[in-house]
């Protein structure tokens, strides 16, 4: 009965397309948390991935060690030169820190936007299809990781936590094209600080774009870009990168700065998840709501 089979095939196809659209719609929607079956699947896969990534990481480590050995001598020379500067810098830093603490005590400010806790994590996988710029790390909710925490390497910020399961979390890199992926940034120049938003990634230049800089502010090429801590999510002072070019936007109302990320966004192995200790706006609102309820 060929028509019957044709019908059956057609029904299967239609049903699967409906299921597909429903599932995609479900997973694309704004969600605070991923559902428990997804978390469960992620944990199971992540467990195996954790084991599978160990030997790969080990071999990579050996290759890197050998590469490091070859230029040890020249590195040593430059490092020795830097060491003398470092001693000077260290005394300055201790002095300034103490000064800062004393002044804070005088004006009675306890919270600091700069304070944060660190969770160290290892990258266990990168999305193989490489469209969503995301990596997966081996720490999850049980390690206290929550959505939207900042993630950085030793050299600079690389992204934020997109979702978490019990034992793994997904990190969305700064290079991901997501209109909601905005970081409130601060460009340090000699006279004053300029505020802007890190919005988008220029694929052809491999550089981040800091937009919404007022047109009358002067931004110098080579100035450092750090997080401002004003978004209420990330702490202040995480290094993002360095300005390479400034151009005005199409209407001439604001400027856009191209920023070279301080940390490579591709070759990642060990990362740090940053938990901000100063309360953000959301938490302050929640607290005040709780208090009202108690009253």
């Amino acid at each position, binding site marked *: 009965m060929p028509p019957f089979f044709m019908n059956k095939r057609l029904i299967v196809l239609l049903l699967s397309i409906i299921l597909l659209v429903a599932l995609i719609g479900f997973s694309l929607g704004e969600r605070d948390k991923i559902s428990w079956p997804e978390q469960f699947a992620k944990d199971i896969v992540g467990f195996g991935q954790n084991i599978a990534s160990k030997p790969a990481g080990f071999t990579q480590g050996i290759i890197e060690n050998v590469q490091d050995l070859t230029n040890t001598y020249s590195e040593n020379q430059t490092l020795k030169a830097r060491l003398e500067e470092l001693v000077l810098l260290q005394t300055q830093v201790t002095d300034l820190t103490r000064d800062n603490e004393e002044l804070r005590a005088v004006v009675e400010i306890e919270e600091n936007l700069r304070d944060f806790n660190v969770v160290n994590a290892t990258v266990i996988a990168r999305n*193989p299809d*490489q469209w969503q710029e995301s990596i997966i790390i081996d720490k999850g909710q049980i390690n206290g990781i929550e959505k939207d925490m900042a993630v950085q390497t030793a050299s600079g910020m690389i992204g934020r936590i997109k979702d978490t399961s019990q034992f793994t979390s997904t990190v969305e890199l700064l290079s991901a094209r997501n209109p909601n992926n905005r970081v409130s940034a601060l460009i340090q120049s000699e006279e004053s600080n300029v505020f802007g938003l890190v919005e988008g990634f220029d694929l052809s230049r491999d550089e981040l774009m800091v937009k919404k800089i007022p047109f009358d502010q002067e931004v110098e090429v080579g100035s450092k870009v750090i997080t401002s801590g004003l978004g209420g999510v990330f702490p202040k002072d995480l290094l993002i990168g360095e300005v390479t070019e400034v151009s005005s936007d199409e209407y001439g109302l604001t400027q856009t700065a191209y920023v070279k990320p301080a940390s490579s966004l591709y070759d990642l192995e060990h990362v740090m998840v940053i938990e901000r200790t100063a309360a953000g706006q959301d938490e302050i609102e929640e607290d005040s709501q709780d208090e009202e309820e108690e009253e």
Partner: protein
Amino acid sequence: MTRLILPILGIVIFYSESIFATFSPIEAYGETRFLVPRFLFLFILLLSVYYKPKTAYIYGFTFGLLYDVFFTGIIGIYMFLFPLLVYIALYILRFINQNLIVVGLLGLFLIALMECAVYQFNMLIGVAGIDFKTFLTQRLYSTLLFNSLFLLLLAYPLKSWIGNLQHAHLED
């Protein structure tokens, strides 16, 4: 024991993809080029031709779902694409002979098809922002080359292995 070999092989290949993805992207001929491993799909394709189509559909569905949940976070794309491409492959193979080279070339063609479909989908939801020409130079050519390397090295061993398993299965 022989029943366990295929799932374990599938899992190993599934994990190897994300490890090979850490090599990418590379700089070659003045362009950033992405190497997207599609080993799992090639494995499923070989299963469908040299083992049983039904097993291939089940593997395609399951591993596609895991891929979606664990890596992309958008459920449905690979879960739907893997079985669909296996179906297309089996449909085409009804008309031409099932030589390993032919199957390999068909696999590359289907990978190109899959890359285009995923690219179009990502354009639709706004994840991808490159035009088609950049997509071709940055992704498609290098990906096809990368996967044909995998085929050259492992297609024959995998084929004979899967064939042996099927014989063992038939004798049971």
